[in-house]
Protein backbone atom coordinates (compact mmCIF):
# COMPACT_ATOMS: atom_id res chain seq x y z
CA UNK A 1 0.00 0.00 0.00
CA UNK A 2 1.40 3.39 -0.92
CA UNK A 3 1.30 5.70 2.07
CA UNK A 4 0.82 9.28 0.99
CA UNK A 5 -0.13 12.22 3.23
CA UNK A 6 -2.73 10.96 5.70
CA UNK A 7 -6.38 11.38 4.77
CA UNK A 8 -7.49 11.44 8.36
CA UNK A 9 -5.20 12.48 11.14
CA UNK A 10 -6.08 12.31 14.81
CA UNK A 11 -3.41 14.49 16.32
CA UNK A 12 -2.74 14.07 20.04
CA UNK A 13 -6.45 14.01 20.83
CA UNK A 14 -7.40 13.61 24.46
CA UNK A 15 -10.67 13.79 26.32
CA UNK A 16 -11.39 14.42 29.96
CA UNK A 17 -14.95 14.43 31.26
CA UNK A 18 -15.94 16.33 34.35
CA UNK A 19 -17.93 14.14 36.71
CA UNK A 20 -19.31 14.92 40.16
CA UNK A 21 -16.50 12.83 41.66
CA UNK A 22 -13.79 14.64 39.73
CA UNK A 23 -12.20 14.63 36.32
CA UNK A 24 -12.34 11.38 34.39
CA UNK A 25 -9.83 10.86 31.63
CA UNK A 26 -11.61 8.90 28.93
CA UNK A 27 -8.85 9.25 26.40
CA UNK A 28 -5.15 9.76 26.92
CA UNK A 29 -3.54 11.63 24.02
CA UNK A 30 -4.12 9.43 20.98
CA UNK A 31 -2.54 9.85 17.58
CA UNK A 32 -3.71 8.11 14.43
CA UNK A 33 -2.66 8.80 10.86
CA UNK A 34 -4.72 7.01 8.26
CA UNK A 35 -3.81 7.23 4.57
CA UNK A 36 -6.43 7.48 1.83
CA UNK A 37 -8.28 4.27 1.06
CA UNK A 38 -7.10 2.34 4.10
CA UNK A 39 -9.23 0.03 6.21
CA UNK A 40 -8.21 0.48 9.83
CA UNK A 41 -9.73 -1.20 12.88
CA UNK A 42 -9.80 -0.26 16.52
CA UNK A 43 -10.28 -3.11 18.97
CA UNK A 44 -10.35 -2.97 22.69
CA UNK A 45 -12.39 -3.72 25.79
CA UNK A 46 -15.49 -1.66 26.48
CA UNK A 47 -14.69 1.68 28.04
CA UNK A 48 -11.43 2.08 26.11
CA UNK A 49 -12.68 5.24 24.40
CA UNK A 50 -13.39 3.86 20.92
CA UNK A 51 -16.75 5.56 20.72
CA UNK A 52 -15.26 8.74 22.21
CA UNK A 53 -12.70 8.86 19.39
CA UNK A 54 -15.48 8.40 16.86
CA UNK A 55 -17.62 11.12 18.37
CA UNK A 56 -14.64 13.46 18.32
CA UNK A 57 -13.80 12.69 14.68
CA UNK A 58 -17.46 13.14 13.71
CA UNK A 59 -17.46 16.52 15.43
CA UNK A 60 -20.12 15.51 17.96
CA UNK A 61 -17.74 15.97 20.86
CA UNK A 62 -15.16 18.70 21.37
CA UNK A 63 -11.89 17.12 22.55
CA UNK A 64 -10.16 18.64 25.56
CA UNK A 65 -6.87 18.49 23.69
CA UNK A 66 -5.52 17.91 20.21
CA UNK A 67 -6.89 18.28 16.70
CA UNK A 68 -8.65 16.23 14.03
CA UNK A 69 -7.27 16.87 10.55
CA UNK A 70 -9.03 15.76 7.39
CA UNK A 71 -7.06 16.28 4.17
CA UNK A 72 -4.66 18.39 6.16
CA UNK A 73 -7.40 20.81 7.25
CA UNK A 74 -8.36 21.26 10.87
CA UNK A 75 -11.83 19.71 11.19
CA UNK A 76 -12.05 19.61 14.99
CA UNK A 77 -15.64 20.13 16.13
CA UNK A 78 -17.12 20.40 12.64
CA UNK A 79 -20.00 18.11 11.71
CA UNK A 80 -20.89 16.54 8.39
CA UNK A 81 -17.28 15.87 7.33
CA UNK A 82 -17.27 12.11 7.77
CA UNK A 83 -19.86 9.36 7.41
CA UNK A 84 -20.64 7.92 10.83
CA UNK A 85 -22.55 4.72 11.38
CA UNK A 86 -23.55 4.22 14.98
CA UNK A 87 -24.04 0.84 16.64
CA UNK A 88 -27.79 1.02 16.21
CA UNK A 89 -29.02 1.20 12.62
CA UNK A 90 -31.25 4.20 13.53
CA UNK A 91 -33.40 3.79 10.45
CA UNK A 92 -36.37 6.13 10.63
CA UNK A 93 -39.48 3.91 10.87
CA UNK A 94 -41.65 6.39 8.96
CA UNK A 95 -39.42 6.38 5.90
CA UNK A 96 -39.01 3.67 3.30
CA UNK A 97 -35.63 1.98 2.98
CA UNK A 98 -34.90 4.12 -0.07
CA UNK A 99 -35.79 7.34 1.70
CA UNK A 100 -33.73 6.29 4.70
CA UNK A 101 -30.63 5.78 2.59
CA UNK A 102 -30.88 9.25 1.03
CA UNK A 103 -31.12 11.04 4.39
CA UNK A 104 -27.55 12.36 4.21
CA UNK A 105 -27.95 13.74 0.71
CA UNK A 106 -31.30 15.24 1.63
CA UNK A 107 -29.78 17.04 4.60
CA UNK A 108 -26.98 18.31 2.36
CA UNK A 109 -29.64 19.85 0.10
CA UNK A 110 -29.68 17.39 -2.81
CA UNK A 111 -33.16 17.32 -4.33
CA UNK A 112 -35.29 14.31 -3.43
CA UNK A 113 -35.59 13.18 -7.02
CA UNK A 114 -31.88 13.32 -7.69
CA UNK A 115 -31.03 11.68 -4.38
CA UNK A 116 -33.42 8.80 -5.08
CA UNK A 117 -32.06 8.41 -8.60
CA UNK A 118 -28.54 8.13 -7.20
CA UNK A 119 -29.52 5.71 -4.46
CA UNK A 120 -31.69 3.28 -6.43
CA UNK A 121 -28.94 1.61 -8.51
CA UNK A 122 -26.79 1.18 -5.41
CA UNK A 123 -29.62 -0.41 -3.44
CA UNK A 124 -30.06 -2.81 -6.30
CA UNK A 125 -26.38 -3.61 -6.69
CA UNK A 126 -25.74 -4.09 -2.99
CA UNK A 127 -28.43 -6.56 -2.08
CA UNK A 128 -31.43 -4.41 -1.23
CA UNK A 129 -33.38 -4.74 -4.47
CA UNK A 130 -36.99 -5.53 -3.73
CA UNK A 131 -36.70 -3.77 -0.37
CA UNK A 132 -36.52 -0.18 -1.64
CA UNK A 133 -40.11 0.73 -0.85
CA UNK A 134 -40.53 -1.33 2.30
CA UNK A 135 -40.42 0.17 5.77
CA UNK A 136 -37.50 -0.77 8.01
CA UNK A 137 -39.63 -2.83 10.41
CA UNK A 138 -40.16 -5.34 7.60
CA UNK A 139 -36.42 -5.98 7.33
CA UNK A 140 -34.16 -8.50 9.07
CA UNK A 141 -31.24 -7.32 11.19
CA UNK A 142 -28.74 -7.88 8.38
CA UNK A 143 -30.84 -6.00 5.85
CA UNK A 144 -31.32 -3.09 8.23
CA UNK A 145 -27.57 -2.93 8.72
CA UNK A 146 -27.07 -2.90 4.95
CA UNK A 147 -29.52 -0.03 4.61
CA UNK A 148 -27.77 1.88 7.39
CA UNK A 149 -24.38 1.30 5.77
CA UNK A 150 -25.61 2.42 2.38
CA UNK A 151 -27.00 5.54 4.03
CA UNK A 152 -23.52 6.20 5.38
CA UNK A 153 -21.90 5.55 1.99
CA UNK A 154 -24.41 7.66 0.08
CA UNK A 155 -23.58 10.57 2.33
CA UNK A 156 -20.53 10.62 0.08
CA UNK A 157 -17.65 11.51 2.34
CA UNK A 158 -14.17 10.07 1.86
CA UNK A 159 -13.87 8.93 5.46
CA UNK A 160 -16.31 6.51 7.03
CA UNK A 161 -16.55 5.57 10.69
CA UNK A 162 -18.21 2.26 11.49
CA UNK A 163 -18.96 1.64 15.16
CA UNK A 164 -19.50 -2.09 15.66
CA UNK A 165 -21.86 -2.35 12.71
CA UNK A 166 -22.16 -6.13 12.93
CA UNK A 167 -22.08 -6.46 16.71
CA UNK A 168 -25.73 -7.43 17.05
CA UNK A 169 -25.87 -9.88 14.14
CA UNK A 170 -25.73 -13.67 14.35
CA UNK A 171 -22.48 -15.34 13.34
CA UNK A 172 -23.69 -16.48 9.93
CA UNK A 173 -25.09 -13.10 8.90
CA UNK A 174 -21.98 -11.43 10.25
CA UNK A 175 -19.75 -13.39 7.86
CA UNK A 176 -21.98 -12.48 4.92
CA UNK A 177 -21.95 -8.85 5.93
CA UNK A 178 -18.16 -8.83 6.16
CA UNK A 179 -17.88 -10.09 2.58
CA UNK A 180 -20.45 -7.54 1.55
CA UNK A 181 -18.55 -4.75 3.30
CA UNK A 182 -15.29 -5.81 1.61
CA UNK A 183 -17.02 -5.57 -1.75
CA UNK A 184 -18.33 -2.10 -0.98
CA UNK A 185 -14.95 -0.96 0.27
CA UNK A 186 -13.06 -2.15 -2.80
CA UNK A 187 -15.73 -0.61 -5.09
CA UNK A 188 -15.80 2.78 -3.41
CA UNK A 189 -12.24 3.13 -2.16
CA UNK A 190 -13.31 4.90 1.03
CA UNK A 191 -11.07 5.39 4.03
CA UNK A 192 -12.65 3.30 6.75
CA UNK A 193 -12.20 3.38 10.50
CA UNK A 194 -13.86 0.35 12.02
CA UNK A 195 -14.59 -0.44 15.66
CA UNK A 196 -15.24 -4.00 16.76
CA UNK A 197 -14.95 -6.37 19.70
CA UNK A 198 -14.24 -9.24 17.38
CA UNK A 199 -10.48 -9.76 16.89
CA UNK A 200 -10.89 -12.08 13.93
CA UNK A 201 -13.23 -9.65 12.21
CA UNK A 202 -10.77 -6.81 12.74
CA UNK A 203 -7.85 -8.74 11.26
CA UNK A 204 -9.82 -10.19 8.38
CA UNK A 205 -11.08 -6.79 7.26
CA UNK A 206 -8.21 -4.44 8.02
CA UNK A 207 -4.91 -3.19 6.71
CA UNK A 208 -4.01 -2.15 10.21
CA UNK A 209 -5.34 -2.97 13.66
CA UNK A 210 -5.01 -0.65 16.63
CA UNK A 211 -5.37 -2.41 19.95
CA UNK A 212 -6.66 -0.14 22.68
CA UNK A 213 -6.54 -0.32 26.45
CA UNK A 214 -8.59 1.25 29.23
CA UNK A 215 -8.08 3.67 32.10
CA UNK A 216 -7.31 5.88 30.41
CA UNK A 217 -8.35 4.90 26.89
CA UNK A 218 -5.24 4.72 24.76
CA UNK A 219 -3.63 2.81 21.93
CA UNK A 220 -1.54 -0.10 23.19
CA UNK A 221 -0.19 -1.28 19.87
CA UNK A 222 -0.54 -0.82 16.14
CA UNK A 223 -0.35 -4.05 14.18
CA UNK A 224 -0.12 -4.00 10.39
CA UNK A 225 -1.98 -6.79 8.60
CA UNK A 226 0.05 -7.66 5.51
CA UNK A 227 -2.23 -10.37 4.14
CA UNK A 228 -2.88 -10.16 0.40
CA UNK A 229 -6.29 -9.00 -0.84
CA UNK A 230 -8.80 -10.20 -1.76
CA UNK A 231 -8.68 -12.42 1.27
CA UNK A 232 -10.27 -15.82 1.34
CA UNK A 233 -12.09 -16.97 4.44
CA UNK A 234 -9.42 -19.60 4.86
CA UNK A 235 -6.79 -16.90 5.27
CA UNK A 236 -7.90 -16.91 8.90
CA UNK A 237 -6.11 -20.26 9.19
CA UNK A 238 -2.75 -19.09 7.89
CA UNK A 239 0.17 -18.74 10.33
CA UNK A 240 0.47 -14.99 9.64
CA UNK A 241 -3.17 -14.45 10.56
CA UNK A 242 -2.91 -16.60 13.65
CA UNK A 243 0.24 -14.83 14.76
CA UNK A 244 -1.51 -11.46 14.55
CA UNK A 245 -4.54 -12.84 16.34
CA UNK A 246 -2.37 -14.23 19.10
CA UNK A 247 -0.67 -10.89 19.57
CA UNK A 248 -3.97 -9.04 19.71
CA UNK A 249 -5.46 -11.47 22.20
CA UNK A 250 -2.37 -11.26 24.35
CA UNK A 251 -2.64 -7.48 24.42
CA UNK A 252 -6.34 -7.61 25.18
CA UNK A 253 -6.26 -10.26 27.87
CA UNK A 254 -3.26 -9.11 29.86
CA UNK A 255 -4.58 -6.18 31.79
CA UNK A 256 -1.24 -4.46 31.80
CA UNK A 257 -0.74 -1.43 34.05
CA UNK A 258 -0.52 1.84 32.16
CA UNK A 259 3.27 2.17 32.44
CA UNK A 260 3.83 -1.28 30.92
CA UNK A 261 1.38 -0.58 28.14
CA UNK A 262 3.22 2.53 27.07
CA UNK A 263 6.47 0.62 26.74
CA UNK A 264 4.68 -2.07 24.77
CA UNK A 265 3.19 0.41 22.39
CA UNK A 266 6.56 2.05 21.82
Amino acid at each position, binding site marked *: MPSSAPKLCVDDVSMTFKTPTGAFQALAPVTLAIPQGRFVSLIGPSGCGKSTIF*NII*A*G*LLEPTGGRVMIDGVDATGT*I*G*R*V*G*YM*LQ*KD*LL*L*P*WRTVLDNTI*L*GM*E*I*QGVSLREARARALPLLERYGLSGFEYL*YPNALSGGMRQRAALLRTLL*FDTDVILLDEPFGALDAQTKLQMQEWLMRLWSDFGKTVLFVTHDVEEAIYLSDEVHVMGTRPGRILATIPVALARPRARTSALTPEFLAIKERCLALLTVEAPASDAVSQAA
Partner: protein
Amino acid sequence: MTVQDRATFGDMARIEPAPREADAAAAAARPMRRLPVQKDWPTWLLVAVQVGILVGAIALWEIGARAGWIDAFFWSQPSAIAHTMGIFFSTGDAWTDISFTFRSTILGFLIGTTAGSLLGLSFWWSRNYAAIVQPYVICLESIPKLALAPLIILVFGIGLVSKVAVATALTLVVSTLTAYAGVKALDPDGEKLFYSLGATRMQVFRKLVVPFCLPWVISVLRVNIGLALTGAIVGEFIASQHGLGRAILYAGQTYDIALVWVAVLVLSTLAVVMYAAVSWLERALRRGVRQ
Protein backbone atom coordinates in the same frame (compact mmCIF):
# COMPACT_ATOMS: atom_id res chain seq x y z
CA MET B 1 -36.14 -42.80 29.68
CA THR B 2 -35.96 -42.24 33.39
CA VAL B 3 -33.93 -45.41 33.72
CA GLN B 4 -31.47 -44.23 31.11
CA ASP B 5 -31.14 -40.81 32.69
CA ARG B 6 -30.39 -42.43 35.97
CA ALA B 7 -27.88 -44.68 34.34
CA THR B 8 -26.11 -41.69 32.81
CA PHE B 9 -25.98 -39.84 36.06
CA GLY B 10 -25.47 -43.01 37.97
CA ASP B 11 -23.76 -41.38 40.90
CA MET B 12 -26.58 -38.96 41.51
CA ALA B 13 -29.11 -41.77 41.36
CA ARG B 14 -27.21 -43.70 43.94
CA ILE B 15 -27.04 -40.74 46.28
CA GLU B 16 -30.80 -40.23 46.54
CA PRO B 17 -32.86 -43.28 45.69
CA ALA B 18 -35.31 -42.83 48.58
CA PRO B 19 -37.47 -39.86 47.42
CA ARG B 20 -39.02 -41.87 44.59
CA GLU B 21 -41.80 -43.28 46.79
CA ALA B 22 -42.44 -39.88 48.30
CA ASP B 23 -42.69 -38.39 44.80
CA ALA B 24 -45.23 -41.01 43.79
CA ALA B 25 -47.32 -40.29 46.86
CA ALA B 26 -47.21 -36.53 46.20
CA ALA B 27 -48.22 -37.08 42.58
CA ALA B 28 -51.23 -39.17 43.67
CA ALA B 29 -52.32 -36.50 46.14
CA ARG B 30 -52.13 -33.73 43.53
CA PRO B 31 -55.57 -33.10 41.97
CA MET B 32 -55.96 -33.58 38.21
CA ARG B 33 -56.74 -30.23 36.60
CA ARG B 34 -57.45 -29.29 33.03
CA LEU B 35 -56.85 -25.94 31.41
CA PRO B 36 -60.08 -23.94 31.82
CA VAL B 37 -61.59 -23.31 28.42
CA GLN B 38 -64.05 -20.51 27.78
CA LYS B 39 -66.46 -20.98 24.93
CA ASP B 40 -67.08 -17.95 22.71
CA TRP B 41 -70.67 -17.14 21.85
CA PRO B 42 -71.49 -16.29 18.23
CA THR B 43 -71.69 -12.56 17.46
CA TRP B 44 -75.45 -12.62 16.76
CA LEU B 45 -76.11 -14.01 20.20
CA LEU B 46 -73.97 -11.35 21.87
CA VAL B 47 -75.78 -8.60 19.94
CA ALA B 48 -79.15 -10.15 20.70
CA VAL B 49 -78.39 -10.15 24.43
CA GLN B 50 -77.16 -6.56 24.27
CA VAL B 51 -80.29 -5.36 22.46
CA GLY B 52 -82.44 -7.48 24.77
CA ILE B 53 -81.01 -5.78 27.87
CA LEU B 54 -81.66 -2.32 26.41
CA VAL B 55 -85.22 -3.09 25.29
CA GLY B 56 -85.96 -4.84 28.58
CA ALA B 57 -84.71 -1.89 30.61
CA ILE B 58 -86.77 0.62 28.63
CA ALA B 59 -89.83 -1.61 28.86
CA LEU B 60 -89.38 -2.01 32.63
CA TRP B 61 -89.02 1.75 32.99
CA GLU B 62 -92.23 2.41 31.02
CA ILE B 63 -94.21 -0.27 32.84
CA GLY B 64 -92.84 0.84 36.20
CA ALA B 65 -93.81 4.46 35.51
CA ARG B 66 -97.33 3.50 34.45
CA ALA B 67 -97.81 1.17 37.40
CA GLY B 68 -96.57 3.87 39.76
CA TRP B 69 -93.44 2.03 40.99
CA ILE B 70 -91.29 4.77 39.50
CA ASP B 71 -92.11 8.44 40.08
CA ALA B 72 -92.60 9.70 36.53
CA PHE B 73 -92.33 13.31 37.72
CA PHE B 74 -88.66 12.88 38.66
CA TRP B 75 -87.67 10.13 36.27
CA SER B 76 -90.04 10.77 33.34
CA GLN B 77 -90.85 7.78 31.14
CA PRO B 78 -89.80 6.52 27.69
CA SER B 79 -93.08 7.36 25.94
CA ALA B 80 -92.96 10.98 27.19
CA ILE B 81 -89.29 11.23 26.22
CA ALA B 82 -90.10 10.02 22.69
CA HIS B 83 -92.91 12.55 22.45
CA THR B 84 -90.65 15.40 23.64
CA MET B 85 -87.98 14.27 21.23
CA GLY B 86 -90.42 14.77 18.36
CA ILE B 87 -91.30 18.27 19.53
CA PHE B 88 -87.64 19.18 20.18
CA PHE B 89 -86.72 18.33 16.60
CA SER B 90 -89.85 19.60 14.83
CA THR B 91 -90.66 22.88 16.56
CA GLY B 92 -87.85 23.15 19.14
CA ASP B 93 -84.29 24.43 18.99
CA ALA B 94 -82.68 21.03 18.35
CA TRP B 95 -80.60 22.00 15.35
CA THR B 96 -79.53 25.40 16.70
CA ASP B 97 -78.43 23.79 19.95
CA ILE B 98 -76.64 20.90 18.29
CA SER B 99 -74.83 23.20 15.89
CA PHE B 100 -73.81 25.57 18.72
CA THR B 101 -72.38 22.82 20.90
CA PHE B 102 -70.77 21.13 17.92
CA ARG B 103 -69.04 24.32 16.79
CA SER B 104 -67.67 25.26 20.20
CA THR B 105 -66.45 21.70 20.74
CA ILE B 106 -64.71 21.40 17.38
CA LEU B 107 -63.12 24.85 17.58
CA GLY B 108 -61.90 24.25 21.13
CA PHE B 109 -60.59 20.84 20.12
CA LEU B 110 -58.70 22.19 17.10
CA ILE B 111 -57.23 25.22 18.85
CA GLY B 112 -56.31 23.36 22.05
CA THR B 113 -54.80 20.36 20.28
CA THR B 114 -52.82 22.38 17.76
CA ALA B 115 -51.53 25.01 20.16
CA GLY B 116 -50.79 22.40 22.84
CA SER B 117 -48.89 20.12 20.49
CA LEU B 118 -46.84 23.01 19.14
CA LEU B 119 -46.07 24.17 22.66
CA GLY B 120 -45.00 20.66 23.66
CA LEU B 121 -42.79 20.27 20.59
CA SER B 122 -41.26 23.69 21.16
CA PHE B 123 -39.66 22.37 24.35
CA TRP B 124 -37.23 20.42 22.17
CA TRP B 125 -35.55 23.63 21.04
CA SER B 126 -34.08 24.63 24.34
CA ARG B 127 -33.54 22.69 27.53
CA ASN B 128 -33.35 25.95 29.47
CA TYR B 129 -36.65 27.18 28.08
CA ALA B 130 -38.24 23.79 28.80
CA ALA B 131 -36.92 23.84 32.35
CA ILE B 132 -38.30 27.34 32.93
CA VAL B 133 -41.73 26.77 31.40
CA GLN B 134 -42.35 23.22 32.60
CA PRO B 135 -43.40 24.01 36.21
CA TYR B 136 -46.02 26.40 34.86
CA VAL B 137 -47.41 23.77 32.54
CA ILE B 138 -47.57 21.24 35.37
CA CYS B 139 -49.28 23.86 37.56
CA LEU B 140 -51.82 24.46 34.82
CA GLU B 141 -52.34 20.73 34.57
CA SER B 142 -53.11 20.34 38.24
CA ILE B 143 -55.55 23.27 38.35
CA PRO B 144 -59.10 22.00 37.81
CA LYS B 145 -59.71 24.07 34.67
CA LEU B 146 -63.47 23.74 35.01
CA ALA B 147 -63.24 25.69 38.26
CA LEU B 148 -61.98 28.59 36.18
CA ALA B 149 -64.94 28.36 33.79
CA PRO B 150 -66.98 31.11 35.52
CA LEU B 151 -64.00 33.45 35.17
CA ILE B 152 -63.58 32.55 31.51
CA ILE B 153 -67.28 33.23 30.84
CA LEU B 154 -66.92 36.58 32.60
CA VAL B 155 -63.97 37.56 30.42
CA PHE B 156 -65.18 36.19 27.08
CA GLY B 157 -68.91 36.84 27.40
CA ILE B 158 -71.85 34.46 27.06
CA GLY B 159 -71.41 33.79 23.32
CA LEU B 160 -69.58 31.07 21.43
CA VAL B 161 -66.10 32.43 22.20
CA SER B 162 -66.29 31.65 25.92
CA LYS B 163 -67.31 28.01 25.24
CA VAL B 164 -64.44 27.64 22.81
CA ALA B 165 -62.13 29.10 25.47
CA VAL B 166 -63.21 26.58 28.12
CA ALA B 167 -62.85 23.69 25.64
CA THR B 168 -59.40 24.98 24.64
CA ALA B 169 -58.30 25.30 28.25
CA LEU B 170 -59.16 21.65 28.87
CA THR B 171 -57.45 20.25 25.76
CA LEU B 172 -54.37 22.47 25.55
CA VAL B 173 -52.52 21.18 28.60
CA VAL B 174 -53.14 17.53 27.77
CA SER B 175 -51.75 18.02 24.27
CA THR B 176 -48.76 19.97 25.57
CA LEU B 177 -47.77 17.30 28.06
CA THR B 178 -48.28 14.46 25.59
CA ALA B 179 -46.23 16.12 22.85
CA TYR B 180 -43.53 16.88 25.40
CA ALA B 181 -43.53 13.22 26.47
CA GLY B 182 -42.82 12.43 22.82
CA VAL B 183 -39.94 14.90 22.77
CA LYS B 184 -38.48 13.34 25.90
CA ALA B 185 -38.72 9.84 24.40
CA LEU B 186 -36.56 10.89 21.46
CA ASP B 187 -33.44 8.72 21.12
CA PRO B 188 -30.37 10.98 21.54
CA ASP B 189 -28.56 8.71 19.04
CA GLY B 190 -31.12 9.73 16.42
CA GLU B 191 -30.10 13.34 16.90
CA LYS B 192 -26.46 12.28 16.81
CA LEU B 193 -27.02 10.61 13.45
CA PHE B 194 -28.60 13.76 12.03
CA TYR B 195 -25.85 16.00 13.34
CA SER B 196 -23.16 13.63 12.03
CA LEU B 197 -24.75 14.17 8.62
CA GLY B 198 -24.28 17.90 9.10
CA ALA B 199 -27.93 18.75 9.83
CA THR B 200 -29.13 22.11 11.11
CA ARG B 201 -31.38 22.39 14.17
CA MET B 202 -34.34 23.12 11.90
CA GLN B 203 -33.65 20.00 9.82
CA VAL B 204 -33.48 17.84 12.93
CA PHE B 205 -36.75 19.36 14.12
CA ARG B 206 -38.60 18.93 10.85
CA LYS B 207 -37.23 15.58 9.74
CA LEU B 208 -36.79 13.86 13.10
CA VAL B 209 -38.57 15.49 16.04
CA VAL B 210 -41.92 16.22 14.39
CA PRO B 211 -42.38 12.84 12.63
CA PHE B 212 -41.18 11.03 15.73
CA CYS B 213 -43.64 12.84 18.01
CA LEU B 214 -46.64 12.63 15.68
CA PRO B 215 -47.89 9.32 17.12
CA TRP B 216 -47.96 10.99 20.54
CA VAL B 217 -49.84 13.98 19.16
CA ILE B 218 -52.30 11.68 17.42
CA SER B 219 -52.82 9.42 20.42
CA VAL B 220 -54.33 12.28 22.38
CA LEU B 221 -56.99 13.21 19.79
CA ARG B 222 -59.69 10.89 21.14
CA VAL B 223 -59.14 12.03 24.71
CA ASN B 224 -59.26 15.64 23.61
CA ILE B 225 -62.54 15.44 21.71
CA GLY B 226 -64.21 14.20 24.90
CA LEU B 227 -62.57 16.94 26.96
CA ALA B 228 -63.56 19.62 24.46
CA LEU B 229 -67.17 18.51 24.62
CA THR B 230 -67.09 18.57 28.42
CA GLY B 231 -65.63 22.09 28.31
CA ALA B 232 -68.28 23.31 25.90
CA ILE B 233 -71.13 21.85 27.96
CA VAL B 234 -69.85 23.26 31.24
CA GLY B 235 -69.46 26.65 29.56
CA GLU B 236 -73.08 26.43 28.49
CA PHE B 237 -74.18 25.40 31.98
CA ILE B 238 -72.72 28.59 33.41
CA ALA B 239 -74.13 31.11 30.98
CA SER B 240 -75.36 30.67 27.45
CA GLN B 241 -78.20 31.38 25.09
CA HIS B 242 -77.82 28.25 23.01
CA GLY B 243 -76.44 24.75 23.13
CA LEU B 244 -77.35 21.31 24.45
CA GLY B 245 -75.82 22.09 27.84
CA ARG B 246 -78.03 25.11 28.16
CA ALA B 247 -81.04 22.99 27.07
CA ILE B 248 -80.32 20.45 29.82
CA LEU B 249 -79.92 23.16 32.47
CA TYR B 250 -83.09 24.97 31.36
CA ALA B 251 -85.15 21.76 31.25
CA GLY B 252 -83.93 20.74 34.69
CA GLN B 253 -84.78 24.11 36.20
CA THR B 254 -88.31 23.96 34.76
CA TYR B 255 -88.82 20.33 35.87
CA ASP B 256 -89.16 19.23 32.23
CA ILE B 257 -87.40 15.92 32.92
CA ALA B 258 -88.33 14.43 29.56
CA LEU B 259 -86.47 17.28 27.86
CA VAL B 260 -83.41 16.64 30.07
CA TRP B 261 -83.35 13.06 28.82
CA VAL B 262 -83.87 14.17 25.23
CA ALA B 263 -80.98 16.64 25.39
CA VAL B 264 -78.74 14.08 27.11
CA LEU B 265 -79.58 11.51 24.42
CA VAL B 266 -78.82 13.97 21.63
CA LEU B 267 -75.63 15.00 23.38
CA SER B 268 -74.55 11.36 23.73
CA THR B 269 -75.25 10.77 20.05
CA LEU B 270 -73.19 13.86 19.17
CA ALA B 271 -70.37 12.62 21.40
CA VAL B 272 -70.40 9.17 19.82
CA VAL B 273 -70.42 10.62 16.30
CA MET B 274 -67.51 12.96 17.04
CA TYR B 275 -65.59 10.21 18.81
CA ALA B 276 -66.06 7.89 15.83
CA ALA B 277 -64.99 10.65 13.42
CA VAL B 278 -61.86 11.38 15.44
CA SER B 279 -61.05 7.67 15.71
CA TRP B 280 -61.30 7.45 11.96
CA LEU B 281 -59.11 10.54 11.61
CA GLU B 282 -56.60 9.01 14.00
CA ARG B 283 -56.36 5.81 11.95
CA ALA B 284 -56.05 7.79 8.72
CA LEU B 285 -53.29 9.93 10.23
CA ARG B 286 -51.45 6.90 11.54
CA ARG B 287 -51.43 5.42 8.07
CA GLY B 288 -50.35 8.80 6.68
CA VAL B 289 -47.51 9.09 9.18
CA ARG B 290 -46.09 5.79 8.00
CA GLN B 291 -45.98 6.87 4.38
